[in-house]
């Protein structure tokens, strides 16, 4: 997509400059928001584009987090290798899940992903000597060439990865890969008749979503410095889904919008923390009932009104 790369570059520079003026805590929040964006982009490709429900997206964030953290802790692999490796591991497991899951539809798929989520949670809890179990895992500080990476440095890493995620996802959706994802959701029969292997696309979507989630997980580990398994349960998966529903499913812009807007919520909700689960679900329900296509439709509506030639032709043909 032509205009995107320079736009992203400008955005990155502006954010980097802005963050250098801000204190540690706002920078930390922005890092978390961008991590949410990366994960939301992945989930959107799976659910919004290829049309497959996944209730276990947070499990892939977990796999990326634990995977990269353990590689660093146990094998002294530096973060800039362990994080991509964690994402790759997550993608592999995503493909393993996708192989059977891509054959399921609707509630059966939902139940299968829910089962997978539970399996991952149980594995995390039971193999406590490796994962730290329910007490969580402390991450060694990220180091580059022996020097500890500062908070600002970690922010820049997350910023770079977020821009990369947005850029690659947008490229994919603008290419045949993206069209096939949509085709498989909209009409599997027509897609097959055009030579698209529906199974392979669906499986690929699982792996792809897991890759983005795994990246988000690896970044989460070094930003927070601690992995808490509670963050990877059903509520977390539902929160991921809330991001893409609120933003608008099927587009990168929607995923970014939803994740960015809702990431501000925990801060706003700090005085009423116990109510955060309730508020999240109310927001989700409100959007599902009232604005199921998300906030991005407001933008799209304006864009469509500008596409006069096509609408004119449609009106002509109807007469």
């Amino acid at each position, binding site marked *: 997509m032509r205009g995107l790369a320079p736009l992203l570059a400008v955005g990155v520079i502006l954010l980097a400059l802005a963050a250098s003026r801000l204190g540690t805590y706002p920078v930390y929040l922005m890092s978390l928001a961008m991590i949410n964006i990366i994960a939301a982009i992945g989930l959107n490709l799976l659910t919004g584009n290829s049309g497959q429900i996944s209730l276990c997206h947070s499990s892939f964030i977990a796999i990326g987090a634990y995977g990269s953290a353990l590689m660093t802790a146990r094998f002294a692999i530096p973060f800039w290798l362990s994080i991509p490796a964690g994402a790759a591991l997550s993608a592999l497991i995503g493909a393993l899940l996708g192989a059977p899951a891509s054959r399921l539809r609707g509630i059966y798929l939902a139940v299968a992903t829910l089962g997978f989520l539970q399996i991952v949670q149980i594995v995390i809890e039971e193999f406590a000597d490796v994962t730290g179990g329910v007490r969580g895992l402390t991450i060694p500080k990220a180091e580059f060439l022996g020097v500890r990476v500062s908070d600002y440095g970690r922010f820049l890493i997350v910023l770079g990865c977020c821009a990369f995620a947005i850029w690659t996802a947008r490229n994919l959706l603008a290419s045949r890969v993206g069209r096939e994802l949509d085709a498989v959701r909209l009409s599997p029969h027509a897609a*097959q*008749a055009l030579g698209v292997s529906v199974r392979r696309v669906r499986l690929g979507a699982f792996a792809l979503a897991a890759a983005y989630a795994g990246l988000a997980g690896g970044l989460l580990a070094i930003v927070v410095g601690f992995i808490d398994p509670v963050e990877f349960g059903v509520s977390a998966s539902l929160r991921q889904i809330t991001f893409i529903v609120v933003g608008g499913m099927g587009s990168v812009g929607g995923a970014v919008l939803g994740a960015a807007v809702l990431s501000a919520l925990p801060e706003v909700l700090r005085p009423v923390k116990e109510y955060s689960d309730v508020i999240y679900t109310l927001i989700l329900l409100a959007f599902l009932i009232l604005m199921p296509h998300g906030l991005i439709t407001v933008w799209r509506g304006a864009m469509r009104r500008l596409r006069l030639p096509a609408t004119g032709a449609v009106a002509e043909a109807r007469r």
Partner: protein
Amino acid sequence: MSELLAVSNLAVRFGGLVAVRDASFRIASGEIRGLIGPNGAGKTTVINAITGTVRASGEVLLDGRSIGGLAPHLISRCGIARTFQHVEPFDTLSVLDNILLGVGRHAPVPFAHAALATPLARSREREATREALDVLERFDLLPFRDARAADLPFGVQKRMDLARALAAKPKLLLMDEPTSGMSESEADRAIAAARELASSHRMTLLVVEHNMRVMMALADTVTVMQNGSVIAEGAPAAIQRNPVVVDAYLGEEAADAVD
């Protein structure tokens, strides 16, 4: 003329119901074959069996190569395209995107290239777009290029369905009731376009039709089915006079009249 499609002893069962029993026919390359028959004859099922959408027993040879049992997307890649009786557009995608899905399959973009927008990916996309725009132009769809497929009037959707199927330049095009829902003049234009396509692109057509007038004007040879079996085959004029065929249709009309 060589034989493009050879169907032998095709049979399709859905549980206890026999939809197609022992159908056999051969289609020569470049031929326009009509497939007619009263309701429930199994015509659409035959199409679905050839495209691999339903499981069938028997033999289907395309250009001498057996395609029975292959996955539908692989069968499509062998050079078979189809249109749908109830159009199946990718409804939230634009007309251009619909056609692009028909086009690009011959030169797919490797995943990594697509993700990183490499020069290879970009040039493939440009080529595919050029081809797709060409198809749009030939089918008078250029004004609709950015319109959502779901917003189109039905006749235009049908045209898009056909354009999308042809964008892949298939050897064999299966058309399932292409003129259903069309007005008489629209149907005439569609027939003319189909004939022109078949001859100019050396394409072979197998057309399922309910509209007799369309069928007789379009087809070189007609195969008639009833209750899952082939009951007659021949030139359109001969078929129209064939007592077995008349009986099959009269039976249907009589049943309709009783209702």
